[in-house]
């Protein structure tokens, strides 16, 4: 009874904690998690969609605190028409930086990838 009354005045863990996991990128991204040590799976460096470590969301690891994992990057695969001799700008997205007092409490997101194939067999 005394402890219960005491807690009325104390900041016991669980009070005013909230977390909003990151959202997966578009298309096909996986949302992050509010659970500790849970990772939003990324994608394999492949023309066929498969789970892997590229674009893998950051995870939080510290016990007893609110935390939120990052969403994975989106994944897309397609064939595109191009003009021979034209120049294309390729951008590889960087993973977002963790936000925590120490790096051991949360990890940054993994960077993405771009894979291109052309020539024989590519229609």
């Amino acid at each position: 009874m005394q402890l219960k009354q005491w807690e009325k005045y104390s900041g016991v863990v669980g009070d005013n904690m909230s977390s909003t996991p990151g959202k997966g990128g578009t298309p096909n991204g996986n949302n992050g998690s509010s659970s500790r040590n849970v990772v939003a799976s990324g994608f394999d460096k492949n023309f066929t969609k498969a789970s892997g470590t590229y674009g893998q969301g950051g995870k939080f690891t510290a016990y007893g605190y609110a935390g939120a994992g990052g969403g994975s990057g989106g994944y897309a695969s397609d064939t595109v028409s191009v003009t021979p001799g034209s120049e294309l700008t390729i951008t590889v997205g960087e993973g977002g930086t963790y936000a925590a007092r120490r790096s051991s409490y949360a990890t940054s997101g993994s960077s993405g990838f771009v894979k291109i194939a052309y020539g024989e067999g590519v229609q």
Partner: protein
Amino acid sequence: MAELETRLHAKLNGVTEEIRLYTTVEEVGDSYITLNVNGTECYAKLGPSTDKYASVVNVRLPGASEALKVLKQITIPYTELEFTTPGTYKFKVPPGVTTLKVALCGGAGGASSSSGYGYYKAGDGGESSVGDLIKATGGTGGQSYDEDSGSSGGSCFIAGTKVLGIVNICGIRTVSWINIEAVQPNDYLIGANGQINQVLCPYAIPLGDDRAMLKTDEENPLVFAADHRMWIKQDGKEYWGVFDYNYMLNNHKTKLLNGLTPSQDAQRRMFEKYGIKPHISNGCTKELPFAVYGNYEFGTIDGWKKIKVKQAREYDGKTLVYSFVMGGNHTYFANGYLCSGFADDTDFDYSTVKITNAAETMGKIFRSSR
């Protein structure tokens, strides 16, 4: 290097074939024919009749015994390129290539952990793209808020720690050792020099993953967080001592955006949350606490006590630890050890603390009641 938009057309038996023309000989290799299209010299590749791109057009080169076929296009070997380092790159589409197969993934969002109270928002992942042709956006970063995280420090003793306080038994006020978790706001505890100090606000938070617990090497040890200020004698000086000095510095010297230290801001939030009149400790502004090392003694209700301190590894981050924001001279005794209840040297002169006197005035009286 380029491919002409204009193509050579060959028609046989009503079937028309297109033959691609290239502007450099490097593109067509050793065997080719030269043409001139509207003043532009260009080349068509030659090959054997078995080539899958062989057209209906035959060419017999001077001195050659057999005719070759004009090929409808050059053969581009299957090629894969991978870009995995974040950044921007330029890619020139090779001659003859009109189709790209592309797979791509955006960068992921980072994670957040409110391992120092407050709002944390991790960075978003970056977008990956190939020109304007295809893209995949990055994931967003996690965000979290924890008002009562242990990293603000200030709570330092495990449940069951005895503090010396004033209790009311059947209308009679007396002193007694009380479990720390049973103390209420506005209760009174005995502090330095035997002074009776009011409990302004009790305080309990998890130890967290970034603080260590220590314990005195004795039968009934005092178990305390390494960042808590204990009254110490070291190198002939008497003042507050802290074992985890870096942690203490961060919580008592760093300034937040609102001008308060993390420790002060934690107090402010606690007072505001529970509607208690605030007293925000200024901390030790005139002299920093000692970094405890080597030859030191603890100030206790029995006088100075030389005792080893060991790591208490049995307490993990979810251990709930307790302390108080104290009025008066902002001190109290925990298991007989004089400790800080958010010591504030702007309204109390700690050079006046007399451990001997405290022992004389308080120890003899209360020792037997422990």
